[in-house]
């Protein structure tokens, strides 16, 4: 059945209407394809997921670049700080271990260190700087605290020069206008600074390779969270004097590392590498003037299509990308950089993009449909209508397209010509039949006439003989005066009168002669009368006799 239909379709010659619609459809499809391709080329029709990925990747690039700059700055400054402080310790002490329990010596050292340390805080991209000495103010070895200095920016979010003494001798701080922090303590309790003990233990030269960062720690006595970069201070003899370095706390990070972005709601996190994302264990920042609430709970990571990662929380979920990032050269494990947007925003973007694409396609299809309808109504239908009109020979109707008017006129002319020719042809046929009939009639008449002529000839011959016999007889009977008058009169006859006399002598009536010569019978009659008068005869018999006698005389027969 289908083959039959196919062959039927192949054989079928599409109508002009169908072909025109087909062409129009093909044109619309071509236009749509071209538009679609152009939109694809111009990047207007991309996968929304890819768009999100691209935006987040771009954002990640910016965030990574910012982080590289930040941590390179503090690493380099940390190395310089270590070198400077090591030099100070070398200059101030002869035996480093003797510092333990020597409040005056430690005080003198802190006095010397505080101003340079403050300068470093002001110059570095940090919220604070510290020096942790491998010595304690207490001589009791059971006390696990270390002397040192920790200076913080007073208001990390504002660019003021105010500094606070978070750790160190308060009097020394006050003397240098570095007021004690509200949660001040004199010494470092290593148990409150996770990572410090390990960093001290692993301290080695070259110090550039011993830059390490702590996990995100909550600074003791506060809710402020910070990542601390440590650089060991190692004397020329290899004695580890302690650690120094910089801290970057959440407040500072937020205020000074706001991310440039076009994304409305975005969060950027520098966190410990872990299975999930816990912003409580990371430094969090947002675009300037924007905010994205990320709950302080562990967000479970799940892979999504297109290289994106879902960060799923109990109530809120996010979508983003995550990359490892080595903060300091000596770090054994990298941290994670994460940029994320609320999943609701992501879903909305996807939906919006899909709706836009759908709307665009719908618009294009509608546009094509409207175009087709417009062209159909404006051109195709009138053309078809005109053609119908042409077909219907309704030449009198006004054409929609002037261009078809000459065609219409020509077609009408041809049509008329054909009609005329047909009519003429019919008439010619009729005439031919008529003439054929007439010819047959004439032929028949001719035969009859031939027979009549032959009969007449025979009769004429008989009559001639009779005439000759009679003429012979009559000459003898004829009055010579009459004959003489005849001869004189004959000489006076006109040519026409002689023709009439000859015809009469041959037996024709004046009417017959008139028909043969297409003259009026009255005219012939007049000629006969004039001839008779001139010849002085009174009948056809006298004429025939005299003429016969005359011709016989002329022929010498008499």
């Amino acid at each position, binding site marked *: 059945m289908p083959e039959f239909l196919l062959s039927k379709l192949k054989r079928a010659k599409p109508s002009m209407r169908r072909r025109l619609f087909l062409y129009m459809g093909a044109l619309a499809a071509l236009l749509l394809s071209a538009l679609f391709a152009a939109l694809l080329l111009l990047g207007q029709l991309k996968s929304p997921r890819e768009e999100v990925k691209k935006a987040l990747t771009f954002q990640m690039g910016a965030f990574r670049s910012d982080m590289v700059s930040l941590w390179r700055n503090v690493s380099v400054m940390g190395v310089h700080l270590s070198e400077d402080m090591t030099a100070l310790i070398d200059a101030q002490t002869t035996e480093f271990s003797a510092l333990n329990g020597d409040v005056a010596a430690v005080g003198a050292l802190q006095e010397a260190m505080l101003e340079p340390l403050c300068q470093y805080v002001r110059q570095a991209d940090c919220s604070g700087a510290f020096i942790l000495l491998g010595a304690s103010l207490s001589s009791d070895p059971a006390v696990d605290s270390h002397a040192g200095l920790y200076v913080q920016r007073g208001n990390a979010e*504002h660019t003021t020069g105010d500094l606070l003494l978070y750790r160190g001798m308060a009097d020394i701080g006050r003397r240098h206008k570095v007021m004690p922090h509200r949660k001040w303590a*004199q010494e470092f309790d290593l148990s409150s600074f996770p990572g410090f003990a390990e960093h001290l233990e692993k301290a080695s030269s070259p110090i550039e390779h011993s830059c390490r960062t702590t996990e995100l720690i909550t600074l003791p006595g506060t809710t402020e969270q910070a990542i601390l970069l440590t650089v060991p201070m190692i004397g020329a003899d290899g004695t580890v004097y302690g650690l120094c370095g910089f801290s970057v706390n959440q407040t500072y990070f937020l205020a000074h590392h706001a991310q440039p972005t076009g994304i409305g709601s975005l969060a950027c996190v520098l966190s410990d590498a872990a299975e999930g994302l816990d912003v409580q264990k990371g430094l969090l920042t947002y675009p300037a003037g924007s905010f994205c*609430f990320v709950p302080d709970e562990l967000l479970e990571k799940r892979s999504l299509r297109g290289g994106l990662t879902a960060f799923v929380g109990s109530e809120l979920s996010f979508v983003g990308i995550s990359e490892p990032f080595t903060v300091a050269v000596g770090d054994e494990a990298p941290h994670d950089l994460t940029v994320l947007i609320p999943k609701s925003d992501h879903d909305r973007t996807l939906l919006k993009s899909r709706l836009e694409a759908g709307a665009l396609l719908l618009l294009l299809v509608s546009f094509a449909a409207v175009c087709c309808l417009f062209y159909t109504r404006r051109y195709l239908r009138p053309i078809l209508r005109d053609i119908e009109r042409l077909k219907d020979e309704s030449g009198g109707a006004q054409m929609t397209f002037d261009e078809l008017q000459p065609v219409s006129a020509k077609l009408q002319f041809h049509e008329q010509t054909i009609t005329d020719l047909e009519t003429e042809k019919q008439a010619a046929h009729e005439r031919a039949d008529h003439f054929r009939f007439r010819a047959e009639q004439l032929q028949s008449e001719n035969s009859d006439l031939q027979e009549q002529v032959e009969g007449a000839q025979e009769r004429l011959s008989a009559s001639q003989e009779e005439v000759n016999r009679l003429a012979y007889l009559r000459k003898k009977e004829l009055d010579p005066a009459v004959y003489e008058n005849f001869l004189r009169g004959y000489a006076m006859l006109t040519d026409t009168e002689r023709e009439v006399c000859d015809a009469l002598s041959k037996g024709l009536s004046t009417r017959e002669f008139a028909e043969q010569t297409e003259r009026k019978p009255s005219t012939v009659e007049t000629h006969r009368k004039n001839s008779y008068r001139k010849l002085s005869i009174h009948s056809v018999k006298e004429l025939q006799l005299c003429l016969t006698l005359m011709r016989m005389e002329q022929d010498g027969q008499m």
Partner: protein
Amino acid sequence: MKKRMLPLLLLSVLILALSGCGEKTLLHKKEPVSLSFWHVYGEQAGSPMDLLVQEFNRTVGQERGVQVQVTGTSSASKIGGYLKEAQSGGQEVQEMPDLFTCHIVDALELGEDNLVDWNSQFTSDELSDFVPGFLSDGMAEDGRLLIFPVSKSTQLLMCNGSGFARFSAAAGVRYDDLATWEGFYDAAGKFYDWSGKPFCALDYPIRAVELCAMERGSGDFYTENGWYDTDNAVFKESWMQFARSLAQGHVVVSDLYSNTQVMTGDVLCGLGSSAAILYYNDTVTYPDNTQEPMNLHVLPMPKTAGADALMTQAGVGLCAYKTTAQKAEAAALFVRWLTEAERNLDFVAQTGYMPVRSGAFDAIAEYDNFPTPAAAYESLYAALQTMREDYVPVSEPRFEGYYGRVSVLYDGLRRLQQELPARAAAGEDIDALAEETWALFCSIR
């Protein structure tokens, strides 16, 4: 069938229309509005306010489409300056926050028209639940409520309990002796004699002086330009009492915050805001690194013997910068949530403030969720309860430029206190040295 459907349809339309009318809001859950927020709660230390903001964002904020972001934490004395900087704009300056805490003076300097009038966001019924005096502290002269009370503080005396016990044992001074200004300055002298250190660091000495003067019947001593009438003899006498103690080194103007001086063992007690309790460490660490438990003991502010006691009524409130109606509504939502009775009680109990709802303070007597050390907080609220019962609250001055002048005065006193005790010890006349401080006071206009 059609007859049944039509009433149902009409009912549905009516319900939808009514529900739409009932919740006319500019907030949209799917398009949350962000409010940047500067506050002064827990500067340098972190505070329950940050936790409350987190909780709000996670709950009501999430539900209603409001996100609050803490973008700045500073002190009540500095936030006004930062706000003015932000309002002026420019590079290196943070953007003006949508919501902030400040004093009424700072709010007025920002311009009344630039701030949301909370009267337009709260009904009179809602406002009637708050302590009227706290509300009036935040009102402009034309009645606009610019500062919404979230917490209120007053000044009181916070003592290093361990140190005081030793001092008490040695000098026979008891906490009860610190109930009056006379007993306070006397104890200060005894402590100085006993330890060679100042007894107390005062965060707001001028306030102590003026309350003392008022108690003594000085009458109104404020001048038209927002300073003090130096011809007021009672006021001067009150000042001189303080100045004599300062000149001898018995008391000091705190270098930044009195609590740090108590923690470092430089002074035995601090006279400052009740909110300072948030910052006290559990231990006192002396320069030689010896430590002892703080055992913080909080006492009411000293008063004038035989006079009606006065207490300062201080504390910042919440102010919203006028931007869009949506942000104003969002700010009101946050403030309404923040000042709900139970939440407000929790917040103030964690931070050492007084609750702002009428009658809420009584609930503190039965409150059992104080942070550690709970004894210190219980001591604080016992002192506050005493003051509420026995003292009359007095609002702080709200003259333009007043706190700038106060800051100049304190800087001058800090310079003088470096030298006056030594000169007094050298035998110079105490009254003459005190007069130097009065001269400094009089020089400020």
